[in-house]
């Protein structure tokens, strides 16, 4: 979805076309859900928090600055929700369970897990990513998985552009160090 289409959808939603919001959800639910999953390690929590993030973004959409990208803004909302959730969970050790039918996803998830397990390098990489502090992990993911420009990463993580560059660079180097420390680095690999 390009920025013009995105702005048209947002305008339609603001004009009262609630159904247009579904297009934004469909476009961004996967990266948002996965980001929260990386943060919480729980699909149920990720589903709960992703839903809450989209609802909160809708409620605040009238404050969204026209002309900016929607995804970094949404990402910031979701990231803050996930961080608050983790802070709260550390305090009271309770976990919310979504009442939606997650079992309908279980088959797919199993297949997905099986697929991931067959790709050992990817699994190791994901393990190393989970060992990164979230600030570095999300910077790396936004840059290389979501392929966002530095300005958008900076907006999503509430950093300056130079700060975002630094975060990505250090994150990638740390990721490499983790992989090397586990003996799975690609130091000597060739492209």
């Amino acid at each position, binding site marked *: 979805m390009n920025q013009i289409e995105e702005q048209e959808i947002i305008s339609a939603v603001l004009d009262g076309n609630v159904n247009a919001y579904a297009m934004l959800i469909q476009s961004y639910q996967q990266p948002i859900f*996965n980001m929260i999953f990386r943060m919480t390690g729980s699909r149920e929590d990720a589903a709960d928090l992703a839903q809450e993030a989209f609802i909160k973004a809708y409620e605040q959409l009238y404050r969204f600055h026209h002309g900016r990208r929607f995804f970094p803004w949404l990402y910031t909302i979701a990231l803050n929700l996930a961080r608050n959730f983790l802070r709260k969970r550390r305090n009271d050790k309770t976990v919310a369970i979504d009442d939606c039918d997650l079992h309908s996803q279980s088959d797919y998830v199993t297949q997905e897990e099986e697929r991931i397990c067959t790709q050992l390098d990817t699994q190791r990489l994901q393990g190393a990513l989970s060992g990164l502090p979230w600030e570095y992990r999300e910077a790396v993911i936004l840059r290389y998985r979501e392929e966002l420009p530095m300005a958008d990463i900076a907006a999503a993580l509430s950093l300056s552009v130079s700060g975002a560059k630094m975060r990505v660079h250090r994150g990638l180097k740390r990721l490499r160090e983790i992989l090397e420390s586990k003996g799975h680095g*690609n130091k000597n690999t060739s492209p």
Partner: protein
Amino acid sequence: MATKTPRPDDIEFDPAESEALRQLSRQVREIPYLAPPACLLSGVMGAVRARRFPLWYRSLRWARSPKSLTFTPLQVASLMSFLVLVCFAGAFFLLKSEYRPDAMSLVQGSVPITFTLNMPDARSVSVVGTFNAWQEKGYEMTRDPAKGRWTLILRLPGGRYEYAFILDGQKLIPDPEAEFLADDGFGNQNAVLIVGKYHDQAI
């Protein structure tokens, strides 16, 4: 594995570790995502359908958006007829309620003016002029029994006025003591009064 063209804001890696980091970044790009549960979309849409943006924002948005208006020639004709009727009715009432300032309304003026007329034999004297639309009611002068002079004090805004006295409700005479007189266009003369802003005046 496909390689991408570097973007303007790509990070410059240290040459010693450049290739390893580039390869690592390509591996990150290939990380598979879990599919979000189907209930996410339906759950969000179910929740947002029950929510509305603040009333002030919806009103502002509505006011800013262009609107199209559809009407028939008959509707336009009806509207125009109604507007013409309203205009005529307004003009009629304005003309009917002719402006008649009385002594009280003139009290709001700025300069006190004392009208005097030495006419001991008159039974009644009123003063009329452009300041009261030549209406004598409410502008009756008072007679000083000792001197036989008729007087009336009015407060008038600054300006030029023409006036005259009505004796016994019938006879119209200009002020015999006025310094200036002006023809009234009907063969008679009116006294002319120039009222300044800062001086009490006696006529």
